[in-house]
């Protein structure tokens, strides 16, 4: 569905990604893990068109999309739940959700999807008229996910959805991701620091280190891989004892 070849990108003169290649098949949950500054968010931002790639190709359903503007990327069905949630704090929860359906004009479809979002996140219905800026972190994350779902994504990109959430909400976010895939059949590309839990809900994963893919594989294999532990805690293979 999504196939990235030899992608290099970065801010200013420097490069944050060096020849990255990944693939996401329809119906899969794929996770990108790696330490801070490894280039995970840069990769998502490049796919979404916020950042122009310096080299390489991004193919979505066989179609070249690199260099397109963000709004046209959304139009073809790649929707991102941005890092830091990207809530429009000075609008109400309802208006935020309306913005999710910005490019759609099928009124009935939107109403139906809105109901499904409320089923998933009943809390949002209660807060409908409230200013989104006053929501708690967890509620904002629900709003961000709900809003993205309203755009009818074919591929959902999620940038660190568990970041800054309390442990209970972290749990909830991963349950939601699991459900999105199992029940609703979404294809998801996920960026996470929370490696164990992310690999728990994903089919496959890639490990990024200073802008390069250093490891890829099935989730279970990655979970047991010592390299992954090392990347996070700097342990040499010998001292691993988990």
């Amino acid at each position: 569905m999504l196939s990235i070849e030899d992608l290099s990108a970065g801010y200013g003169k420097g490069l944050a990604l060096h020849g990255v290649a990944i693939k996401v098949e329809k119906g899969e949950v794929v996770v990108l893990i790696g330490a801070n500054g490894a280039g995970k968010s840069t990769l998502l931002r490049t796919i979404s068109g916020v950042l122009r790639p310096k080299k390489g190709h991004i193919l979505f359903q066989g179609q070249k999309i690199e260099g397109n503007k963000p709004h046209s990327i959304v139009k073809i069905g790649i929707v991102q739940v941005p890092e830091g949630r990207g809530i429009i704090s000075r609008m109400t929860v309802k208006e935020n959700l309306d913005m999710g359906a910005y490019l759609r004009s099928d009124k009935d479809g939107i109403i139906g999807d809105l109901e499904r979002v409320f089923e998933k996140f009943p809390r949002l219905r209660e807060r409908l008229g409230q200013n989104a800026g006053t929501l708690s972190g967890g509620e904002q994350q629900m709003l961000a996910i709900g809003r993205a779902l309203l755009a009818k994504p074919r591929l959902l990109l999620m940038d660190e959805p568990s970041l800054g959430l309390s442990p209970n909400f972290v749990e909830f976010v991963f349950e939601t991701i699991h459900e999105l895939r199992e029940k609703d059949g979404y294809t998801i590309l996920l960026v996470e620091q929370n490696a164990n839990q992310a690999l728990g809900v994903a089919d496959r994963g890639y490990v990024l280190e200073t802008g390069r893919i250093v490891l890829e594989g099935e989730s279970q294999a990655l979970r047991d891989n010592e390299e992954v532990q090392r990347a996070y805690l700097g342990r040499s293979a010998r001292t691993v004892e988990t």
Partner: protein
Amino acid sequence: MILEIRDVVKYFNGFSALSDVGMDIEEKKIHALIGPNGAGKTTLFNLISGMYDVTRGEIRFKGARIDGVKPYLRTKLGIGRTFQIVRLFGFMTVLENVMLGSHCKTKAGLLKTFFRFSIREPQEEKATRENAMRWLEFVGLPHQANEIASNLPHADQRLVEIARALALEPDLLLLDEPASGMNPKETEELNSVISKINQMGKTVFLIEHNMELVMGISHVISVLNFGGKIAEGTPAEIQGNSEVIEAYLGKR
């Protein structure tokens, strides 16, 4: 103890970024601060250097309270720092950037700058320049002295920033993610620079995500998660701490 952090609390518009954090930084040690994104590490640095004020709690430097003291005065007391995203002064040469580090150790005012009869370089200026040059050599970049700072490669800019902080001859050096965006070879160089700084008898307090670097050079490591300290100890202790592993990798 060169730096004592006592029950520090920081709120931003009602959100608590740090809650009751306490930490002691021992003199002449390399002390690392680690933790997942958003744990409050940079916030703590900003409180120490004075970019933010604490909501509650106190910070002592060499025994005297510094919370509430203006940032530039803390610098004068001997706290130097670098930033997560490099902040060099772009319109200036590398050398000038490092010379700025000596600002609070020097005196010449505007009048003295202008009203002098000799066309020779003033003594103080010469000393400042030579001092800056020494620090550039220390980080291995003397050949870049006259380059415009923003034209340097990223890793070199980081080193210049460290040289600038060193030029003010701090007793405590705060390094905020010095290795971020560096490749393994550059990280290696950085590693040796940090060790050298420590060998000169300076205390280094650093935030870093590159665990190989952290585990390799730190004497003590403190771990922050959700604005609170969850662990502290030697690298070996931290690597074996299950709470830390969970904070980083998540629950299994």
